[in-house]
């Protein structure tokens, strides 16, 4: 495809910007860590209560960060993050006190065990979404609460450790490199463990941000937007959901480990449902799906809970009525509802939108200057489509073959022994009245549903029975009847999601963000800018996708589909909702792409477009193929005419 590299100053800025932004984030985290650590190291007793509070903030922030990947990005709402926090805390304490494991090793094992538990749970429940998933996590949280209160080896309600079983109510401090990591509990003792916690927390939060902003994070966002979409971006949805659950659990466990180290003693009463609610509230309040959101949310919510900041509000109510008033838990409930109502994007999301609006206005002219060289005006208007005779099909010539495929839904036959043979170098249109089964065929090709009979081959290999992401990875891309976009993200971000990295970047590399990632980001940004330009969106890269006009949203979907460098592109009603000029533009784009060797299947009603671009046409009605041939041949078939007219008469009746 196009090889022009745009010499864009915008891109240069982005390139320089990424490392700078990463550094900026690190500096902010380090500054916050230093601000917390300095008083903790003073050994001054009056700082202890404050140090404990800030340490709890850090613990909850880390757990909420993990939860954000699960519930904010992938939108799998968990009401049980507190359970993983508790498991991390208890397992690390148990291994260090009751088994002779070195405490550092105990912590590592605790995190691995918790992640495995989360992953296993996900493995069992990943068919679930929405309320059902939330319910499972809720049940796990309740069960965990029960086990902590009832299981003798964990000290039950005597706490862990306790004087009866262990001779002391406190865990011994960890000794590393000759230093004892003391908890912030005793005046005159430097709370050295806080420094260790902060170092680990900074590393964890940098890793979290790396993941959130990587292609891996984008795949979560895709799952959250639509699992259908995510699978079509080459994401193994099932595997990814298990992985993100394990990752979120690991972060929850790490938060719990911090908690255990700070207080050196665990009571089951600390790990109630309210803890899980606190964490999901931190995510929502701060801004679900934003990087800084859960951190901001955790700071605010923990401080509101643990300090007297809400006392004036309680006193105010009590002046009105001394019996009917809300104290901290109730006020936090109110805060939750108000946030959902007035700040659905959370504090960071809301501010981000404001800043974006402000900055967007400023950056506008620069963007215009930077892109004119690559606008689609430069793509050559191609020769008109030549309607070729449909000749005998040569096997090597066939890219996609759907043979005798049937599919029914709950007794309704949606597709009946359908035949669709798509040859290399062609555009193949599928037409037919509404409900004829066209989109269902597209969905059968990309493995959305299993087929009841027949076979589907792509490039000579059977693909029926394979899962969507595998089919997509073998070179099929598609657009959707109603555009499926990240409406709150920029057009650029949408195209970036189309690259194979979304499905293939390993989690470890995303977490570490090796230098290769920076290079890859630059490549992808450049390539995405090219694709945007190709579809006529060269100037709209930074525009929020949801605010683009409908026609441009369709173009954006095509650009995203092209990002995976497919061999076959399935377009589902690409001209729906487009005006004449836009439709003509679309036709030209399709022909350009065909010249570059891309094979297309286009499901379309728009006969002008069909005749303009298609080499072959298949007409369907009631799930079966009615006619097949060149556009002219098919449209001349009496049965086709009747099918269309019949429908029209029905519609007007």
């Amino acid at each position: 495809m196009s090889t022009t590299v745009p010499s864009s100053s915008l891109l240069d800025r982005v390139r320089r910007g990424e490392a700078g932004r990463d550094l900026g984030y690190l500096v902010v985290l380090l500054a916050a860590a230093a601000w917390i650590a300095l008083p903790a190291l003073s050994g001054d007793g009056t700082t202890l209560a404050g140090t404990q509070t800030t340490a709890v903030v850090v613990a909850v922030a880390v757990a909420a960060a993990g939860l954000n990947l699960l519930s904010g990005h992938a939108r799998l709402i968990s009401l049980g993050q507190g359970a993983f926090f508790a498991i991390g805390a208890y397992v690390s304490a148990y291994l260090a006190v009751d088994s002779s494991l070195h405490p550092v090793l105990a912590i590592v094992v605790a995190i691995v065990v918790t992640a495995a538990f989360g992953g296993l749970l996900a493995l069992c429940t990943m068919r679930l979404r929405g309320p059902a998933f939330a319910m499972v996590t809720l049940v796990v949280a309740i069960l965990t609460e029960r086990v902590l209160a009832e299981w003798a080896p964990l000290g039950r309600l005597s706490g862990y450790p306790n004087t009866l079983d262990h001779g002391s109510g406190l865990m011994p401090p960890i000794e590393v490199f000759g230093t004892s990591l003391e908890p912030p509990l005793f005046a005159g003792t430097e709370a050295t463990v806080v420094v260790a916690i902060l170092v680990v927390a900074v590393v964890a939060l940098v890793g979290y941000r790396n993941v959130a902003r990587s292609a891996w994070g984008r795949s979560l966002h895709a799952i959250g937007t639509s699992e259908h979409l995510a699978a079509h971006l080459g994401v193994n949805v099932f595997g990814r959901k298990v992985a993100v659950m394990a990752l979120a659990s690991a972060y929850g466990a790490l938060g719990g480990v911090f908690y255990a180290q700070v207080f050196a003693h665990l009571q089951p009463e600390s790990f109630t449902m309210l803890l899980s609610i606190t964490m999901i509230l931190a995510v929502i309040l701060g801004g679900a799906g934003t990087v800084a959101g859960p951190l901001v949310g955790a700071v605010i919510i923990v401080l509101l809970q643990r300090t007297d900041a809400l006392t004036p509000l309680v006193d105010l109510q009590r002046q009105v009525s001394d019996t009917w008033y809300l104290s901290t838990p109730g006020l936090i409930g109110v805060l939750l509802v108000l946030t959902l109502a007035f700040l659905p994007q959370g504090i960071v999301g809301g501010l981000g939108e404001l800043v974006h609006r402000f900055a967007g206005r400023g950056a506008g002219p620069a963007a215009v200057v930077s892109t004119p060289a690559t606008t689609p005006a430069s793509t050559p208007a191609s020769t008109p489509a030549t309607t070729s005779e449909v000749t005998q099909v040569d096997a090597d010539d066939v890219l996609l073959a759907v043979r005798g495929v049937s599919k029914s839904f709950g007794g309704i036959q949606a597709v009946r022994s359908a035949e669709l043979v798509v040859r290399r170098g062609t555009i193949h249109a599928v037409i037919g009245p509404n409900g004829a089964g066209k989109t269902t065929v597209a969905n059968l090709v990309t493995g959305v549903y299993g087929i009841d009979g027949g076979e589907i081959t792509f490039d000579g290999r059977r693909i029926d029975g394979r899962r969507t992401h595998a089919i997509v990875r073998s070179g099929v891309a598609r657009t959707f009847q109603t555009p499926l976009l990240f409406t709150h993200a920029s057009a650029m971000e949408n195209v970036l999601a189309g690259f194979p990295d979304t499905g293939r970047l390993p989690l470890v590399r995303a977490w570490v963000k090796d230098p290769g990632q920076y290079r890859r980001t630059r490549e992808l940004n450049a390539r995405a800018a090219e694709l945007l330009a190709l579809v006529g969106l060269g100037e709209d890269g930074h525009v929020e996708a949801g605010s683009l006009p409908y026609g441009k949203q369709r173009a954006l979907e095509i650009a995203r589909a092209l990002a995976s460098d497919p061999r076959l592109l399935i377009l589902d009603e690409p001209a729906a909702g487009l005006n004449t000029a836009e439709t003509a533009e679309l036709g030209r784009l399709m022909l350009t792409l065909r010249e570059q060797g891309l094979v297309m299947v286009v499901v379309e009603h728009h006969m002008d477009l069909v005749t303009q671009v298609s080499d072959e046409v298949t007409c369907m009605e009631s799930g079966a193929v009615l006619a097949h041939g060149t556009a002219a041949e098919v449209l001349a078939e009496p049965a086709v005419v009747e099918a269309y007219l019949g429908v029209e008469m029905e519609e007007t009746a």
Partner: protein
Amino acid sequence: MKKFAVAALAVASVVSLAACGSDSSSEREDGVVRIGLVGPETGAAPQFYTDLVRPVELAVADLADEYGLEVEIVTVDDKGTPDGASAAVQQLLNTEDVDAIFGPPQSGNALQVAEVIQRSGRPWLSAALAPEIMDESLDPNWLFRTNYNASDLSSVVAQLLFSGDNTVGIVHSADAYGQSGAESIEAEAEELGAEIAAVEAIQPGTTDFSAGISRLAAAGVDTVFLAITAGADTATVTKAIAQEGLAPETVVTNATILADFAALADPEQWENLVFIDPRDLTGETVAGIAADYEAEYGEAPIIPTNVYSWMAAVDAYLQAVAEVGDARDFDAVREAMEGLEQVSVRDDVYDAPFGAGDHEIYEPEDPSQWIVFGFDAEGGLEARGDLAACIAGGC
């Protein structure tokens, strides 16, 4: 980056706001005894806070002049959570620099801070019931308990339960108090060579306990001990006893039944029910406290037994301070408390309440110190006599 900077700014402003809110330390004056109270002012069970602060206020008003002391009360909120208690205690110890700590009243929160207070080396008074709070191996031990503990009550109850040829079953709450109560009675039984036929746990707030009772019935239980924290759960259990037709000879429990039981249960449920408490709950002292409490605060005491225990704590502590003459000499105050000749709650007097190795006010060894109570036909409380008499002659 801008977005992040704005967010950081927002956080910073909240942090400083919150910091302002919590900055309430006050200067201490010389010669004033400063008592720090910690309880769940805003937790799920604020009654434990209310009935810590009010009795301390009442007792201080009564006793400060008597002992010639000027007393200042500082309260902090533990939010009803263990980590809240941890921060609250740090505030009392370091920011408020109190001379003694009263609370936290809830066992879980007390357990969380036990070691920290012990190491701080200041007198600590508690009315929490969980025995684990008291680490008797500590020397010096700073904790003085003016309530009974679950384990002591169990050994007292054991004297009654195993006095005849009974088949004993236990039902305990799935909480700290219930768990330790059941454990200590099992230990007690082992010591006496007696056997416990069945042990069942009840989840607080549970809707039905018939399965648990039917297991007791299957074990042939005729005497039941309930180590239960809330009267409402006791009602659930006695209801199930009636429903399953268990008909035990005796059901023994503790004073926590007072809060709600009689209001919820029907007469048939309390026929054979008795509970044991070291305080004379039908006596004039308790009635007098209730009257003064109601006059001052406009309602009856919510947890009368806690009110009583905290008043005892105030007397013990202020007496010791008056004897030493300096509340800041913590060690001397602790030793003075160990050597107190008596502690009184108004007219009720406890002789030699503590000793060097004894920081519990009530002694399980002496059955005459413990009183057996039951309900009359109208649900009113009646004393049936002391435990010694009951064991000897039945009540």
